[in-house]
């Protein structure tokens, strides 16, 4: 699931539903819900337009993003 909605924070205002370019969200029982999770392309519009900070776009670690801490230092730095 790419979009995580905190139902405690969601007020059901519908801004995210209006904004979503892929039409994947709607309001059900007063809260935003994700109807078509695999059509989300993680653009972030819903996050930007949510007035209560209730939405997070999840970047699945295996597919999208990984980082590792550096364990050795670089000897080629020209600084």
């Amino acid at each position, binding site marked *: 699931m*790419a979009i995580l909605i905190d139902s405690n924070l969601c007020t059901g205002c519908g801004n995210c539903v*209006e*904004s*979503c*370019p*892929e*039409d994947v969200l709607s309001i059900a029982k007063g809260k935003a819900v994700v*109807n*078509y*999770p*695999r*059509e*989300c*392309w*993680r*653009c*972030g*519009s819903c*996050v*930007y*337009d949510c007035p209560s900070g209730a939405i*997070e*776009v999840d*970047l*699945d670690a295996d*597919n*999208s*993003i*990984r*980082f*590792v*801490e*550096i364990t*050795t*230092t*670089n*000897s*080629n*730095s*020209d*600084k």
Partner: protein
Amino acid sequence: MSDFEVRKYVTDILIVGGGIGGLAAAIRARENGADVIVLEKANARRSGLAGSGLDHIQSYIPEFHGKIGYSEEDLSADQFEFGGNPGGLHRKDLTDYFAAHSAADVIELEKYGLKFRFEDSDRPGGFRIVPQFHNVPSSYHFEGRDVKPALAKHALELGVKIFNRQHVRELVTDGGAVTGAVSIGTRDYVITAVSAKTTILATSGVASRLSSGVTNGDTFETFGTPTASAGSGKVLAAKAGAEVVNLEFINLVTGYSFQNYSFTIGFPGGSWWPAGRIVDEDCQVVVPRTRDLPPDDPDYKAKYRELIRHSGEERGKIVPLLLQGKNLYFDLQEATDAEIDYIWWALGHEGKSGVIKHHLASRGVNFKTARFPVRLAGKNAPVLAGLWVKDSSLETNIQNLYVAGNELAGTGMPLPAAGNALVFGFRAGEQAAARAKETDTAADGSGAIIQSLQAQAGEILSRENGDHWFNAEDGLQILIDNNLGKPYTENALALTAQLLQKQRDGLKLSAANLHELSRSFEVLDLYDLAELVIASIRERKSSVGSFVRLDEAKYPAEKYGDSIAVYRKDGKVKARRLSNLV
């Protein structure tokens, strides 16, 4: 369930697509006194390729370029060179227009409340300027996350009517001229028919859904926003008889990915330039960081060109090493604190990078010590194409049909370019408004189209156990991935055309609701587009740039730079060769 309410409107100018190009056209047309309706498939607040933001935009920047000694001609030449790759199919008259008008047009965004000037800048004008991979450093780096809400708000304040969630299905024509369009709701059972004196096609230039995704993410991990990437504008235009040029398919391998983005050139670079570098497992530098030049360097131009050439050469090492199975990483170990602050700022303004910023920040990532694996990416499928115009009036070969933004052929990059969308959006709005003043309102000719659209929608909505759009799209992508984007022979192309036709004829789409109906229409457009693409490649018959024919000996190469135009006449696809030398 498929009773659609039909709403009819009459206006001076109809704009299909409310991205940057469409809204720029709407704003300028309205300023020139025209009544304007925009039909937008999503919501113009957040639609199009810049829907969730834009952090750089190309322009001639007089304060900076004047000081260094870059002329408008230098910028035009740079655009011609880069946009011509890989096809070599650019229009110098249009890049000249961009170079001459961008200075005034692009900075207009500042008036809509977007921040372009920064106190810590050492560049003339107080701008932040990123070079990307151009020989002329020419992109404003700005706070454009809300460029679409800002443009939409301004357009609405001017009195532009924007109808959101309306998916345009066909242009209405009368005696060889376009007289409006018909759309269908993606959420409401509404069909909208607009009669207009002039129509501007401002649909997206990309059609990346012809091919499977760029990265191994979810269904829609494409380069451009999926809803804007079905190539519908080209299909609409060709059906109305407009010439769509250079639809050849290039299976561009995107090289490598970083943070859910894929790159061919410009990385490390772009917004991260010049602080990023590529290292191997032992932290040995593979691609060193670069350093920008101070704007008062007397030899800036020559040194800069060499810098870009050299860093391009260095970046060329990445893909071969990844193919050898080497583990490579991007890091910022040589970046200063100020550069790292800049990167955090830069990440917040362009689309998905804002999501990545939030993700990294919430996990407490420290750019000083983190390193990021760089991996081989999948393929991308840019279609170097758009609508042919005879000159910078931006009217197509079909009377009263104008083109704006990235749907305009012969300008911009092979990939979408925001500066071009804006400059040619404003231009289309101005030109279409002038034509509308001398044009009578045509009689409403939408009846037959509405009837056929209702029937088609009813059939898809009422069919049970039919093909889901996603499976149909998947099937098309497999066919395209396997058969196009490689050196061509006439025999293989003919076979691909047959397979496509067979697959299309066998499709029995069904949709549970209007959302799925809209997706189904997008898939039908992708099939129509594929037919146009194959016709275009077959007509080329020669190698140009990346378009490689294995049977070229049988088809001697024609004049470099010719364009191939495809269009429909009486439903049949036609193709012809055009000279670019206008």
